[in-house]
């Protein structure tokens, strides 16, 4: 049969020759190998000083976007929750009152919107399902917590702040996605 790699070796248990029984040549060979490794370039990334570059398609913590006037895009249609294979998303829809037009873009909005980050598998299907360009995955990481319930992120953590919008263009402009 044709071998899959070029490292195929025929194993045999024939008695060792004198040179093999000395073991010293094998030891010197091993030491040569380790010496070569000593001179190699280190591949370590020294974390706090250097950070690994994320791939542009990296799917990290979610963000609920606002539009250019600072209104929340989400209309609580629930398509993201339906699309979610891990059932990590829950929401309660609410009706926009008079005087809240500067807060919510459409008449319906999410009163409560929660993602359980422990359930989430960061597949990005919520982002694909969203018809309102409200939810996106970013290159941010979900920080560690001590309690399990601290991983259930509400709107306080998910909605971007008006003053510091989250940039999502890098991920959106990769691949052959068609612009909507």
């Amino acid at each position: 049969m044709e071998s899959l790699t070029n490292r195929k070796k025929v194993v045999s248990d024939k008695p060792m020759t004198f040179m093999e029984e000395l073991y010293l040549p094998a030891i010197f060979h091993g030491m040569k190998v380790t010496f070569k490794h000593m001179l190699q370039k280190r591949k370590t990334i020294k974390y706090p000083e250097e950070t690994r570059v994320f791939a542009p398609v990296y799917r990290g913590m979610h963000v609920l976007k606002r539009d250019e006037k600072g209104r929340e895009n989400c209309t609580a249609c629930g398509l993201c929750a339906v699309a979610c294979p891990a059932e990590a998303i829950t929401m309660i829809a609410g009706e926009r009152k008079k005087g809240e037009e500067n807060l919510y873009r459409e008449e319906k909005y999410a009163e409560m919107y929660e993602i359980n980050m422990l359930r989430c598998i960061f597949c990005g299907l919520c982002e694909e399902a969203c018809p309102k360009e409200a939810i996106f995955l970013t290159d941010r990481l979900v920080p560690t917590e001590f309690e399990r319930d601290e991983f259930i992120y509400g709107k306080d953590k998910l909605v971007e702040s008006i003053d510091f919008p989250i940039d999502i263009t890098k991920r959106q402009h990769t691949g052959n996605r068609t612009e909507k």
Partner: protein
Amino acid sequence: MDTGLLIEKSVLVLIIFLISLGIAAYQTYFERKLAAWIQDRVGPDRAGPFGILQPIADGVKMFLKEDFIPKDADKWLFIIGPGIAMFTSLITSAIIPWGTDLELFGRTITLQVADFDIGILYLFAVLSISVYGIMIGGWASNNKYSLYGAIRASSQMISYELAMGVSAITIILLSGSLSLTDIVNKQHGMNWNIFYQPVCFIVFFICSLAETNRAPFDLPECENELIGGYHTEYSSMKLGLYLFSEYTAMFISAAIISILFLGGYNFPGMDNFSGNTLAILSLVVFFSKIFLFIFIFMWIRWTIPRFRFDQLMHLGWKVLIPVALVNLLITAIVISINEGWFNELM
């Protein structure tokens, strides 16, 4: 007694003590660095530039740990165990000739604490005692792993001391003296014993690895089988002393190998220098030889896996001792023929 001599020797002892400790401390750092490099890692680099303050950080950590003595341990022996280990690995340095004579303040200072005419015997005596630290510590811990470690250490020491002794006798035959100074002076210039006795060198080197409990002979303290072996129950600076004594022993072993086989402080072209220049050069040469051997010790540790215990015994009794004996016999015959002792018979 000459006061000057007393001061001179005291200062020398102090300096050697500090150097041994300092080198032992930095060996831990270098060992970790080298291990990292061999394994394509970076190694400790947080404490100070390139991590050079790591030994200090380790030492402080050791001191701040809880000093725990197990309930069923033999308290007295438990405490003196690490002391004996450290003591024996330090006192070997007394007979090492570090360099040629130094002229200072109108005095000729011999860079050797004590020039015994039976230096090698002293060396082997101390080496034999050095296992007591491990044995007592392991036994006093009242822990099966520690006891296994201690038993292994003593049987290993007994097995390898024989081959080591026989190869040392070969060198004694060659030099005609038991004094380390004479042995070094016999190897003046480039007449190093390693060129005359390569087999003996290999045997002695392997035995030194075994005597210092270094990998691949680190069976007394193998981390994965015996959870640290004889020092399983030790904590705080007692553990620190055990680890430290191992590194000191390694430093001293490297020094002894360089004395016996690499000509100690001798280097080619040393006749062109004299006085203090020669003394300092010889010191530098000697220490670079020591560091070379320390490097090789560590390099071997991170290359070769540990022996199984029966393999260790096989190597010691069935390979090294016969090889050393045959080598001794051949050396003796060659020397006696050269000396003309058989002339009347032939």
